[in-house]
């Protein structure tokens, strides 16, 4: 535990030092980067200790603040969130150490590292805080640090707007959390987690508050609207951290709250399943409609959070209906997906950053052919794309498989519940997950295909070049990790077991423990098959090489059917690739199309552009906000400058009070 605290101190110290070193941005960057990596390693060490020994660590330090105490603790639930946070922060810091100085003005370097380290420290604190006030302070600190990171490029109007949306969303979400924690701590007087109690009958409302409050951070639909704005605006290594791990603190919060709630009603599981399926499907659909690589990835975060939430929902249903294997598989799948998504989404964001760094644009329709110019970026991006699409032998497949298995186990155990409902669940989850996976694969075919394959579509793409060694190394590490998770499948139930037990009510621990043992088998199969698959790919590649050795291999232009002047613009574009699928789901989209069609006999110029804004932002939040603003502006006459009116208010107030109160 003291290792962990030391890590936090390193984060803070390094952040402050790099903030103060205004003279030398390079040195500031170095300090910030080294501090982040060191801090992460220290935190990782203490989390690993907890995971391996299975012994939770606690420490409480003196702190004088009303209702608060500096109580920290790492149990297995915390530890499995500390691990991805520390890993991703370290990798992103290494990446950022090279990326940031070469992409941004030197004046932002110091502050950027300060906030990066602050973000890392507060994220770690959030998952180890054992006091409500401390949790909320760190929670808001995390939001603010990332808010400032989003604002790195603050002179662009779009960035400002994104940051504002982000800040507003975080604040609204936190409002729910304030009430949530106060309600939990109402009976004990202070806000220490260990004395949190759920008053009888209030589990439902507490659960809903947690879903809205934490869901805003995590990016549940429809409160995800900040996500596609903020992530693209931030520097890429920050997007990687935000999307990869910061939003997961919302999942952590939800899980942590579940440990206080005890028995939760069955509808809460259904709620999560529905929210998850909606987030997953809509997230991936919106992603399909994007041309901006980072925005596309941001929507995929919504999708993956949806998958995690489906897992949680399945787990909750398992708990509510006392089907231990279902609970275990659901929760373990969700928790493993937290780690997996952290790995591959960070990898993809780093890749997107590399693309932007190498070409200067993230518009997929302007890219193309980058795999040749940026082989490492391209290959690692491909690994990430396969992983996020849930393809074996990569990690995304493992966690999704667990969730599938969870549902199927539950359905097999359908004797205890209404048949219709259970069948519906099966359709919802299995169908939903399958649809999500398929669409994700389509989406990444589009993203990878259009950006990295084919011919460059613009001069920017033509000029593209591979990024520096540190950036490449961090992407390679993450890509390797994606494989590693899948290839070490059977250890994960052990890692996640005690965390699952923590979430389950006490009366239920034994059965859960037993179910954890059983869940190893499918993972063993996956693990072995993955190794076999890799071996076979290797084998076949060697066979191919043997066959081709010593023979002439021709590389010629693609046959153009005799057309004399092909240009790269004749390639499939990202929009046209996605168009058939989007047409199928057009009821969810309101694309904004600006077109200037060719007219006349000799048309000179024609243009076409489309943009797909977020439906929920455009048709849910913006109307509400503008309605509020409209109402407020209608009420401006109250203060319309006449003194007489003002005195009249006072007179009427006192008269009304007299007549009302002295009756």
């Amino acid at each position, binding site marked *: 535990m003291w290792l962990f605290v030391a890590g936090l101190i390193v984060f803070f110290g390094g952040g402050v030092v790099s903030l103060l070193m205004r003279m030398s941005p390079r040195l500031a960057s170095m300090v910030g980067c080294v501090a982040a990596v060191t801090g992460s390693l220290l935190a990782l060490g203490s989390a690993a200790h907890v995971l391996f020994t299975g012994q939770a660590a606690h420490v409480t330090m003196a702190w004088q603040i009303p209702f608060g105490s500096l109580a920290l603790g790492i149990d297995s639930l915390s530890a499995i969130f500390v691990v991805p946070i520390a890993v991703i922060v370290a990798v992103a810091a290494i990446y950022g150490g090279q990326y940031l100085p070469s992409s941004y003005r030197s004046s932002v370097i110091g502050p950027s590292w300060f906030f990066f380290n602050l973000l890392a420290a507060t994220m770690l604190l959030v998952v180890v805080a054992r006091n409500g006030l401390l949790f909320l302070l760190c929670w808001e600190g995390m939001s603010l640090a990332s808010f400032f990171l989003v604002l790195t490029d603050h002179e662009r109007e779009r960035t400002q707007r994104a940051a504002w949306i982000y800040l507003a969303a975080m604040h609204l979400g936190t409002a729910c959390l304030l009430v949530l924690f106060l309600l939990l701590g109402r009976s004990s007087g202070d806000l220490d987690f260990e004395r949190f109690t759920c008053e009888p009958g209030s589990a439902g409302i507490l659960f809903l508050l947690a879903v809205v409050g934490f869901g805003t951070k995590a990016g549940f639909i429809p409160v995800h609207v900040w996500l596609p704005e903020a992530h693209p605006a931030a520097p890429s290594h920050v997007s990687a951290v935000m999307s990869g791990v910061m939003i997961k603190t919302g999942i952590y919060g939800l899980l942590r709250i579940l440990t206080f709630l005890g028995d939760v009603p069955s509808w809460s599981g259904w709620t999560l399943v529905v929210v998850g399926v909606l987030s997953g499907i809509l997230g991936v659909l919106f992603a399909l409609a994007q041309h901006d690589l980072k925005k596309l990835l941001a929507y995929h975060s919504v999708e993956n959070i949806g998958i995690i939430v489906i897992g949680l929902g399945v787990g909750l249903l398992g708990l509510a209906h006392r089907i231990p294997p279902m609970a275990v598989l659901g929760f373990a799948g969700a928790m493993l997906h937290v780690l997996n998504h952290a790995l591959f989404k960070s990898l993809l964001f780093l890749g997107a950053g590399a693309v932007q760094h190498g070409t200067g644009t993230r518009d997929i329709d302007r890219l193309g052919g980058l795999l040749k110019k940026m082989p490492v970026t391209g290959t690692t991006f491909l690994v990430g794309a396969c992983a996020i699409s849930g393809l074996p032998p990569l990690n995304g497949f493992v966690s999704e498989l667990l969730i599938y298995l969870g549902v199927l186990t539950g359905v097999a155990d359908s004797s205890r519940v209404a048949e219709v409902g259970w069948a519906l669940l099966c359709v919802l989850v299995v169908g939903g997950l399958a649809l999500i996976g398929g669409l994700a694969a389509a989406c990444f075919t589009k993203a990878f295909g259009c950006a990295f394959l084919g011919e460059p579509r613009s001069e920017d793409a033509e000029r593209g070049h591979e990024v520096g060694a540190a950036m490449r190394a961090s992407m390679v590490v993450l890509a390797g990790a994606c494989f590693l998770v899948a290839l070490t499948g059977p250890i994960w139930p052990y890692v996640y077991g005690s965390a699952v037990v923590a979430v389950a009510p006490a009366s239920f621990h034994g059965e859960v423990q037993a179910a954890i043992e059983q869940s190893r088998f499918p993972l063993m199969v996956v693990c072995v098959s993955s190794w076999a698959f890799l071996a*076979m790919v290797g084998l076949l590649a060697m066979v191919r090489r043997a066959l081709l050795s010593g023979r002439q291999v021709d590389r010629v232009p693609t046959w153009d059917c005799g057309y004399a002047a092909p240009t790269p613009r004749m390639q499939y574009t990202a929009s046209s690739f996605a168009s058939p699928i989007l047409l199928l789901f057009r009821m969810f989209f309101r694309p904004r199309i600006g077109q200037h069609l060719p007219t006349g006999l000799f048309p000179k110029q024609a243009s076409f552009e489309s943009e797909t804004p977020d439906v929920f932002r455009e048709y849910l939040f913006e109307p509400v906000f503008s309605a509020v603003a409209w109402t407020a502006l209608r009420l401006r006459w109250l203060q319309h400058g006449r003194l007489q009116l003002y005195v009249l208010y006072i007179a009427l107030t006192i008269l009304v009070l007299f007549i009302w109160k002295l009756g």
Partner: protein
Amino acid sequence: MVTTSGLIQIALALVLAPMMLTIINRTKAAFAGRRGQPLLQPYWDLWKLFHKTPVYSQTTTAVFVSGPIVGCAATWLALMVTVHA
């Protein structure tokens, strides 16, 4: 565990797979009143194809090359899992 019969099954499946094409084509031909291809035609085709000079478009990348390999590996794997189960 990998058994001898399993290995034999896998090997057989690999060897006989191209025959599937012949069977399909000959069945079709029979219904159309033709004679159809020789029994070992796919093997001859494969033999011939393996000896041709490979030509790749300049546009393509390693992804293009790895497509068949991964596809083949995945099919094999499916085969193995099926046999095993």
